Every structure is written in C-alpha cells, then in structure tokens.
C-alpha cells in the first residue's frame, strides 16, 4: 500500500495538469503524462553538481515513502509530520548545496514555506489530539464521529497547507515560480535525481491527501471525496490568483491558519465538546 502512494500521487498530478489545461481553455496532456516525464527523466544523462545531490534525492524520496507508510499503517501523526519535514529538509539542503543563485534563493524560500505550513499542521494535529485524545491515526478511527463535523475550520486551514504543499499560486514561491527562479528548487537536478524528486513529490502529495481524508475517518470513500474536493479547490485557486511574495505567504498562513484552528478549538471548548 505504501509503495502504491507514488502511483496515486502521479495520477493526481496528471489530473492536476489536465484540469489546469481545461481551465485555461486548452486540451492538455494525457493523464499519464507525469509517468512519461518521470520515465524519460530516468533515462536521461545526469549532471551532478555535488556528490551530495543523489544521496539527498534518494533521501527525499525515502523519507516521503516512510511518511506514506506511517500513514497507511495508522501511526502517529506527529511522526508523519517530522518525517515529511525531514524529506523537505533533504530537498532544501540539496538546493542550498548547488552553486546556482536561483537554486539558493529558492532553497531559502522553500525553507520559509516549510516554516509557514508546518506550525499550522502541528496546530491542526494538536486540535485533533484535543478532540480525540490521541495523536495516532488509529485514535482518529476509534473516535467514531467524523472529524469534519467538529473541526471544519481546521480543514480550511489545511487547505492553505495543501496549496503550499502542491506549490500552486498564490503561494508557489519556491517551486513553480519559473518567472523568477527558472525551476526553483528543482533547477539543479537533472536525469534520475529529478525523477526521484518527482516521485517524492507524488508520494508527499498522496500522503497529504490521505491525511486530509482522515477528516471523515469512518468511511474512506467519503474521506477520499473530501480530499479530492479540496484538491479541486486548490486548482481553482491556482488559476484565480497570481503569485504573491513569501512575506505575504508567511503572514497569511500564520494569521489565517492559526486563527482558524484556534477559533475552532475555542468554539469546541465553549460548546463543551472537549475538556
């Protein structure tokens, strides 16, 4: 199951590209396009700037896969968060390690992106803990009632996280900002290292989607539908907004994300659901 996550993520990426193209009045690439891209990248000659790069690319994919595995085996959410964080750090370090100024700048921005969404995720998990009394996914399943009914605002906050995670505008400051930074953090990867990074991204996307589907934990089908709706909303937002700066990203995520979750928790406390 954990090994299938890259496939799900890849398919989602294909859906993403197709839908984006349709929103722009184009036909768009076939659904399997990300797989073609990754396969092709695997067969290309690789140019390696530093010997650390391949190791870090493997690390990125590895940590992402571990995170996916932890989610499938219903482990601790905090652990998932830290392992995904490790994956991101691999990417950031690899970007810093390359000698290109574009790579360096976007590595810096990727770091800031992590800084902006991880606290929100942490807070959301804490809210889940306050409701269910457990940080583990198993605990969420055992809680019985769908989380969406108790924590709707936290889901909205996680929507912002998904935007950053998928590197979509308005907060695509590090990955997709080709107008500013060519290919962002991916500038200096080529050949199989890039293919690994792509696989890692798919895995991470699928992991995040699985976490989102926990908001209707008793039924994976409804949960999956919720996460797909959120995915679609991200695509809409991507096509509706230009890119903003990282300063704005940090401010928005912290202000809106924290406020939403704290309000949610406060409302629950007042309503007597928790404590």
């Amino acid at each position, binding site marked *: 199951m954990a090994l299938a996550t890259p496939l799900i993520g890849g398919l989602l990426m294909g859906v993403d590209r197709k839908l984006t193209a349709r929103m722009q009045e184009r036909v768009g690439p076939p659904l399997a396009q990300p797989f073609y*891209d990754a396969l092709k990248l695997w067969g*290309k000659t690789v140019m390696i700037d530093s010997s650390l790069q391949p190791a870090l690319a493997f690390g990125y994919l590895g940590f992402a896969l571990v995170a996916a595995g932890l989610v499938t085996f219903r482990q601790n959410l905090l652990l998932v968060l830290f392992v995904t964080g490790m994956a991101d750090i691999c990417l950031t370090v690899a970007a810093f390690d390359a000698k290109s100024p574009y790579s360096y700048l976007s590595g810096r921005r990727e770091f800031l992106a992590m800084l902006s969404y991880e606290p929100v995720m942490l807070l959301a998990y804490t809210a889940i803990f306050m409701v269910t009394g457990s940080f583990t996914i198993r605990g969420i399943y055992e809680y019985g009632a769908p989380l969406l009914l108790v924590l709707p605002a936290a889901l909205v906050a996680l929507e912002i996280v998904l935007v950053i995670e998928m590197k979509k505008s308005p907060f695509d400051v590090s990955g997709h900002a080709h107008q500013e930074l060519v290919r962002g953090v991916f500038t200096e990867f*080529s050949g199989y290292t890039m293919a690994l990074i792509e696989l890692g991204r798919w895995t991470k996307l699928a992991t995040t989607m699985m976490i989102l589907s926990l908001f209707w934990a008793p039924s994976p089908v409804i949960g999956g539908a919720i996460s797909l709706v959120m995915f679609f909303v991200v695509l809409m937002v991507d096509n509706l907004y230009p890119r903003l700066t990282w300063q704005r990203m940090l401010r928005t995520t912290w202000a809106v994300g924290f406020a939403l979750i704290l309000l949610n928790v406060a409302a629950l406390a007042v309503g007597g659901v928790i404590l």
Partner: protein
Amino acid sequence: MTLVQKARLKSLWVVHFDCGGCNGCDIEVLAALTPKFDVERFGIVNIGDPKQADIMVLTGPVNHKNKRVLRDLYEEVPDPKMVIAVGTCACTGGIFHNCPNILGGVNKVVPVDVYVPGCAARPEQIIDGVVLAMKKLAGEAPEEDE
C-alpha cells in the same frame, strides 16, 4: 523499443533560446503553448532550465556575442537531445545574411537536427518540426548520406 524510449517521445521538454532574431519566431514559439495550438497535448513543456531539457529550440541568427552563450547552453543540455532551428534566420541567416555581426545560421555553432523554415515560422510548422525531431529520436529518420 524500451519503456524509457517510448516515454521519451511523449514527454519532450523544451528550452528556448533566442540568438538575436526579430522576436517573430519567439512569440510564435510561445503562441504554440497557448490555447489555440497547445503543444502540451504532446507533453511538450517550455521548461526554461537547460539541465532538464530534451529539445533546444533556437531562433534567430547567431552573432559574435551570443555564440559563446549558445555553446554553453548546448553543453548544459543532457543527452539525448535534439536541436531545432526555428525560422529562416536560425537556418541560414536569412535576411540578415549580409549583416556584419552575424555568423549565419545556428548550425555554424551547434549541430542542428531539424530545420524549420519560415519568417516567422508558423506554429503549425513548429509542431511539424517537433514531430520530425520525435521521429529522429525514435530512430526513424533517414540516414545522413555524406
């Protein structure tokens, strides 16, 4: 044909460099990405990063200042790669053939695989050129008889 080779034909990432033409071809290359022509149907993306590109789309005649840039860029694109010269000036120099600072076509600096004529080359011609490059990548191109 292996799986990787098949995938290669369906995912061509383009890096575009203007060697000093009139912009006519450059905007047509861009126009090929926009809704009316939408080359993303074939998996073609303008990637802008030479390290991940498969196809170099070159426009404009080469002059003495940018031939070094062009050569560096060519070196940076990893194998297997295809070079498409788009437009009359990129093929032979065209109307700039007697300008003093012009070397001629881009084939004076880097080996060219496909020549797309036209001033400016139309998006249909550019798509045809990419199809020819795909055939060459697949090994279906006629052998050079020299």
